[in-house]
């Protein structure tokens, strides 16, 4: 059935968009302007690849249980650089996370031509992951892998977390009105946004790990088709709502796979998808501004 495999392809593409979209939504909700999901995703992909290649032969089917948390930790650590710079030196995270994105791209480029290059040393990519280190397919006959289920569970989990837990409330309060959160709620705003930054980076890193274990099975330079940037559109169109991120992630996945089909069949460059994404963000901004309120939960904490 070609329709089924088209649908599955779109859901495969939606997986990193949903998880990275959650990362961005989580950060923006907590008043952290993390534009660095792309870099955190790449670093997560590096970690998952390295762990799977080195420890895979020993761990066998348990590899995923080390590789995916490893990816999340690597992404959190990469975001941690920006979080530290913000906490200690008041460096704007918008700038620092974008710089870290570029550094991560060059890091991947270095690794796949250096220490992690495949044994024949011809192609700029790593060896392929062993079968045991890959995420299982959940819909036989298609490429749809277990990562999509993880993405849905994460979105539901975060929706519950924001609504039902004290930390979730503190994060929403910090993002919505940092001064009030501090004075009326005795919330340690600095600490809360630090945690938000790390969790956001961890989610983006996990998205990268899942992309390697479920789709590419190897690390190479163009592993991410700008998922970390699209994730910003995904999060904003969802109104920073975790359950909304599922819908907008799938929507953007269809938009992008559609653009790829246009490129293949009609030679229309797939970069039109990023134009459409940007226009959607701007339209959302215009609508919310003209209604006289910002995007819900989006008030910036100024680090100066």
């Amino acid at each position: 059935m070609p329709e089924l495999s088209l649908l599955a392809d779109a859901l495969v593409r939606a997986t990193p968009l949903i998880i990275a979209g959650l990362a961005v939504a989580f950060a923006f909700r907590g008043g952290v302007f993390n534009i660095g999901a792309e870099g955190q995703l790449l670093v997560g992909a590096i970690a998952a690849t390295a762990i799977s290649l080195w420890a895979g032969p020993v761990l066998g089917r348990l590899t995923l249980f080390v590789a995916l948390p490893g990816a999340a930790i690597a992404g959190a650590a990469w975001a941690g650089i920006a979080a530290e710079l913000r906490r200690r030196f008041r460096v704007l995270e918008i700038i620092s996370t974008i710089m870290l994105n570029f550094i991560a791209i060059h890091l991947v480029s270095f690794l796949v031509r250096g220490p992690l290059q495949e044994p024949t040393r011809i192609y700029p990519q790593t060896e392929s992951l062993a079968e045991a280190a890959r995420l299982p397919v959940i819909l036989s006959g298609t490429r749809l892998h277990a990562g999509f289920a993880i993405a849905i569970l994460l979105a539901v989990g975060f929706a519950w977390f924001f609504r039902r837990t004290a930390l979730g409330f503190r994060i929403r309060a910090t993002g919505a009105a940092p001064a009030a959160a501090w004075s009326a709620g005795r919330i340690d705003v600095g600490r809360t946004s630090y945690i938000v930054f790390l969790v956001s980076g961890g989610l983006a890193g996990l998205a990268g790990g899942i992309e390697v274990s479920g789709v590419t099975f190897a690390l190479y330079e163009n592993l991410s088709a700008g998922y970390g940037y699209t994730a910003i559109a995904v999060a904003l169109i969802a109104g920073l709502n975790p359950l909304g991120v599922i819908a907008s992630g799938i929507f953007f996945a269809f938009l992008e796979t559609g653009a790829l089909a246009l490129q293949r069949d009609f030679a229309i460059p797939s970069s039109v998808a990023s134009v459409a994404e940007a226009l959607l963000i701007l339209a959302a901004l215009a609508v919310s501004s003209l209604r006289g309120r910002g995007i819900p939960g989006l008030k910036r904490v100024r680090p100066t």
Partner: protein
Amino acid sequence: MIALEPFLEGAVRTATPLGFAALGETITERSGIINIGLEGAIIAGAFGAFVAAGTGHVWIGFAGAAVAGMLVAALFAFFAIRIRADQIIAGTAISLMSLGLTATLYHQLYGATGAALSIPTMAVAEIPGLAAIPVIGRALFAQPPITYLLFVLVPCAWWWLYRTHSGLGLRAVGEDPRAAVAAGVPANRVQALAVLLGGMLGGIAGGVLVIAQAGSFAEGMSAGRGFIAIAIVVLGRWHPIGVALAALVFGAASALQYLFQAMGWSLPYQLFLALPYVLTLLGLAGIAGKSTAPASLGRWQDQP
């Protein structure tokens, strides 16, 4: 020290586009608006330069760059000033859109292979006498004429911002827009003008890349220079002279690779590619607390 001269020449060459973009952003930020869409103005300027220089004249190319940069800035001004949307989100979306749109147009107009069109480039114009000064002569006075324009613009910008009534008005708007309005300064108009001027200089920065350096257009050739320029504005403490020096220091650091090559040291080339971004992070951390932004920078809540 044979290697020193090409190193210094490389430093000034790298600093030129950054200097234009950062000078423009300095003017914009002094009016209280942070334009993250600067990256978009640069790539639009590069594309505009490529199209306009097809007529055969380099200065028409630069005019095309300036107009393209201003168009992008005008779109940003609508969102940031007319409807007071969040500047960071609007700027990010506009950068994303400009990168996608220029890539799409380039594919459509010049085909997937590109480079069908040869455009005139701006040759080096030595200033007789001055270019013969030992060590620094060629670096400063054997550059394309557009670089000399920057040499003139920097003191002009300083004069305007610090020694004229309208410059004082612009800085007043950046510190406290409501007080400026009360004092009779048309804050909205001043900010719109500052954004357009910033976009124009950002566009010219893109023009420098195409006409004075690469000689052709490539997708995403702005390569994060807009974001680096925003960091340079912080490093230069929002002062035209300081910003020009910061751009030069930055150019020098990026040109280190010429020095290393000349000395025969071999290091992975990705290290040099990543260096500008690493330096930006280190520089921002290094000036912590020593730099004060215009008081209302990026705060749409303060706006009249």
